C-alpha cells in the first residue's frame, strides 16, 4: 500500500463564484469538478486528453480537465458548461447547437461548446479553417462535425459583434 497522501484545500473561481474543495494534489481537476463541486456537465471520454469531452476554460484557456492536477486550480478562474447559459437563458452557441443539430448524443457537447466559446473569444469572426482547428481537440462520433461547424457559424453571425 502506498503512503496515504493528504488532501489539500483548493480555492478558485468557478462560473463566476468563489468555491473551495478538498482534493489530493495530483487528483484531476475533472474529478474535483464532477465529484466535489457536483458539476457533472463536464464529461470524461478518454482520460488522456484526446477527446476533449472534459474541456473547460481555465484563465481564459481551453484545457482538458482530465490532464490538469486539481492543485493547479488554486486561484484560477474556471468556466464549465454550467456557466455558459446565464440565468437560464441559453448562450447563442447553445441555441445554435440546438437549432442546427450540433448535438446528437450530447456527450461531447459540453466540451465542444466550451471549445466553441473559447474559439469565438479568440476569433470573433472565424474562418472555416479556424473553426475546424479550434475544435480539433474535441472528438464527436455522431455528427461528422458538419452540423457543429454550422452551429458555430450561425452563432457568430447572429451575435454579429465580438463577444
Amino acid at each position, binding site marked *: *500500500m*502506498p503512503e496515504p497522501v493528504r488532501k489539500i484545500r483548493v480555492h478558485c473561481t468557478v462560473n463566476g463564484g468563489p468555491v473551495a474543495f478538498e482534493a489530493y494534489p495530483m487528483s484531476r481537476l475533472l474529478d474535483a469538478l*464532477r465529484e466535489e463541486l457536483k*458539476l*457533472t*456537465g*463536464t*464529461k*470524461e*471520454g*478518454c*482520460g*488522456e486528453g*484526446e*477527446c476533449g*469531452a472534459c474541456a473547460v476554460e481555465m484563465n481564459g484557456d481551453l484545457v482538458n480537465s482530465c490532464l490538469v492536477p486539481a492543485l493547479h486550480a488554486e486561484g484560477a478562474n474556471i468556466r*464549465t*458548461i*454550467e456557466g*455558459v*447559459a446565464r440565468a437560464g437563458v*441559453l448562450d447563442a452557441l*447553445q*441555441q445554435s*447547437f*440546438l*437549432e*442546427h*443539430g*450540433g*448535438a*446528437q*448524443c*450530447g*456527450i*461531447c*457537447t*459540453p466540451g465542444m*461548446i466550451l471549445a466553441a466559446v473559447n474559439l469565438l473569444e479568440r476569433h470573433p469572426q472565424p474562418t472555416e479553417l479556424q*473553426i*475546424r*482547428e479550434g*475544435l*480539433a481537440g*474535441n*472528438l*464527436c*462520433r*455522431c*455528427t*461528422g*462535425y*458538419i*452540423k*457543429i*461547424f454550422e452551429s458555430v457559424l450561425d452563432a457568430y453571425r447572429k451575435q454579429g459583434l465580438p463577444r
Partner: protein
Amino acid sequence: MKESVIGKSILRKEGRGKVTGSACYIDDLNFPEMLYGTTVRSPLARGRIRAIHFDEGIPWDQFTIVTAKDIPGQNYVALIVNDQPCLADRVVNHAEEAVVLLAHPDKYLLEEARRNVGIEIDPLPAIFTIEDSLAKKEIIWGEDNIFKCYEVNKGDVDSAWAGAAFVVEGEYETGAQEQLYIEPQGVIARAGPSEGITVWGSLQCPYYVHKALTPIFGLPKDRVRVIQTETGGGFGGKEEYPSMIAAHAGLLAWKSGKPVKMIYDRAEDMVATTKRHPSRTRHRTALRRDGKFLAMDIDLTMDGGAYETLSPVVLSRGTIHAAGPYHCPNVRIRSRAVATNVPPHGAFRGFGAPQSVFALERHLDRVAAAVGLAPDELRRRNFIHEGQTLAVSQVVREKVDMDRLLDRAFEASSYHQKRERFERENPHSTVKKGIGFAAFLHGAGFTGSGEEYLASEAIVEATPEGMVRVLAGSTEMGQGANTVFTQVAAETLGIDCGQIEILRPDTAYVPNSGPTVASRTTMIVGGLVESAARQLQEALIHSGLLKQGYDSEGFADACRQYIAEFGPLTSLVKYKQPADIHWDDQRYQGDAYGAYGWAVYLAEVSVDTRTAEVRVDHFTAVQEVGTIVNPTLAAGQVEGGVAQGIGFAVYENVVWKDGRMINGQMTNYIMPTSMDVPPIRVIFEEVPYGRGPRGAKGIGELPLDGTAPAVANAIAHATGVDIRRIPVLPEALIEAMEAGDLAHA
C-alpha cells in the same frame, strides 16, 4: 387544417439538457453507500485457469469479490445461443475475458487492488485469423469453429461460366472497427434476493439486458428492471455488451448488498468490448459481352471472435447485402462466421453490410475495367428495377431508380468533368486526385421473419394533464428517436409537438418495442406509435369528447375529460407482419426486408504520393429513404455515418497482438477529427414508403455501407493502386505505389 410537422426540423426533444450539461448520463448518477466495481480480466487468449491469487498488501476484507461460483443462477449471457459465460470458469477463450469482479467504496484503492489480483492460466494454443479457424488449426468452438453458415442460391451459377464473355475474380478484406462512442460503457446496479435487480445504464436495448439478467440471477421477470439513462452514443456497441457489464455490476451489488457503479475507462472499453467483424470476401463474376451480369459467386467469411453472440445475424445481413442493388440471373452467396480467440465481435452500425458492400463495390470497379466499361456504365447496365429480383429472390415492389440517384450524385459533384480533369492533371502532380463512388442498398428493420418474431409493442396514452405520452422500449442515443416519435405522434393526432412526452425507457413501464438497432426505430416502432396514436384519437372521437376540427387545446380538454369520466386512456399496438411479406428461413429466400434504402455515395480524394496520406476532399451522399421526418436529424445521421465510414476506410486500424488489441487508446486508434471530414453534400430523393409512418423508411445504418467503397474506389482512381483491403493505411499504400501500378494495397 394544422400545418404538418413532418419534414420540419423540430428541435431535438432532449436537446436543451444536452447543450446545458444538465442531461444525466450514467456516470452523473450516484447513490448513497454506492460502491465502485471493476473487472479483472484474462491476460491470455486461451487456457485453463489454474489459480487466482490475491497479493498481499491490499485489505481484501474490505472488498466484495465475485467469481463464477458466486453467480446465483446460470453462468451465461443470454443472446442467440447461451455459449458466452458471464464470468470465465475454469477456461478462458479470449484475452480480456472477465474472471474476477471487485467492488470497493474508494475507486483509487479499487484500481490498486485490481492490479494485485493474479490469474494463473495454463495456456492452450489459440487461433487469431479466419484462415487458421477455417483450417481448423485448433478447434475452439463446437465441432468445426463455425458459428453459422448460409447459402443463398438463385438460378444456376455453375452452368453460367461456360457462356461468359468475361469472368472477373477478386478477394477483399475489411478490418475490425471500434464503435468509439464518446461515453464509455457504464451501469449502476442495485440487487438483492428480496428486491430483485435494478440496473441503470448507458444502453441501446433495455429488454436485451432484461433477458440476460433474468437467468443469471434466477429471478422471475418482474423482479428484473432495466432503466436507460441518457446514452452518449451506441452505434451497435451498446446493443449486446451492456448485458455483460450489467450482470457484472449486478453480481457485485447482489453480494455486497450495496449499489455498485461500474464505468469502463477508455482503454478497457476499447480492448474488452465488441467491434465490427473483420471480413474476407471472394467474388467471381461472369458477364456477357455487353457487360450484363451472368453470374455472381460470392464467398463471405466473418471473424466472430470467441463466442457466437450476434454473429449469425451480422452474417445474415452481410450475406443478403453482398450482391447489392443489381439484377443478376444467377447468384450464389456462401457465407460463414468463424470462431477465433479474440473478444467477440458484435453489432456496429451497418451490421455486416459495410463489409460485403465494400467488397462488392470495390470489385465492380475492377470488373468495369476488365470489361472495358466506365464504372458507372457497368452499374447502369445492371441496376435492379421494379419487378426484378434481388439475390435472395425478393421481388422489388418499391419504386427504385438507381440511375436517378447516380445522376444526382454525378451532377452535384461534377463527376465526369472532375474525373477527366484529375486524369489529365495527375501525371504532373505529386498530389494525385481521384473520384469514386459506390451504389448500394440497405434493408431496414430485422431480417426476414425477425420483425414477426419480435412482435414489438408501443403505447400512446393520454395524461390527466391533457398531454400525450409515448411509451416505447426504443432508446434515444443521439439518433433522434425522441424527436421522431414526437413528430409522428403530433402529426397523427394533429396537435403541437410540445404536447407530446416521451417516457424514458424503463422496463417497469415501457413495453418491449424490440431492440434499438437495424434502422428499425423510425420505420417499425414509429409505425406502431402512429397506429397507437390513431387508435387513441379514435377512442376520443368515439367517446364524443373530441369534436371535428379540434385544435391542440381542444384535444387536451378531451383527454382530461375522458380520463375524468372513464379512467385511463391507453392505446397499445403490437406489430403485425403484413400478409404479403414472406421469408423462407431454410432456403434463405424471400422478402428479406420490408423496405430498402437506396443510395449512391461519391468521394473525392487527394493522395500525397510523398507521404501516402489520403484526404477526402469532398463527399456526396444521395439516398432514397422514404419521407424525411426531420431534415436536420436525417442529415445528421448521414453526415455522422459518412465520417465513421471515412474512418473505416482510411484511419481506423485495430492492431492485434496475440489476440489483444494493443492500440486501445484514442491516441493511437485514430478516428476522424474536425480536420479530417470533408464538406458533405447530403441529398434526399424522397419517395414515400407506403408502410412507413408518414412514408418514412430506416436511415441510421445505410451511410456506413457505401462510404468506405466510395473512398477506396477514389483512392484507386487517384493512384492506380488496386485497393483490396481497408483501412487503407499510408504504410500499405506507399508500398503499393512504390511497387508500381496495380500492386495490391
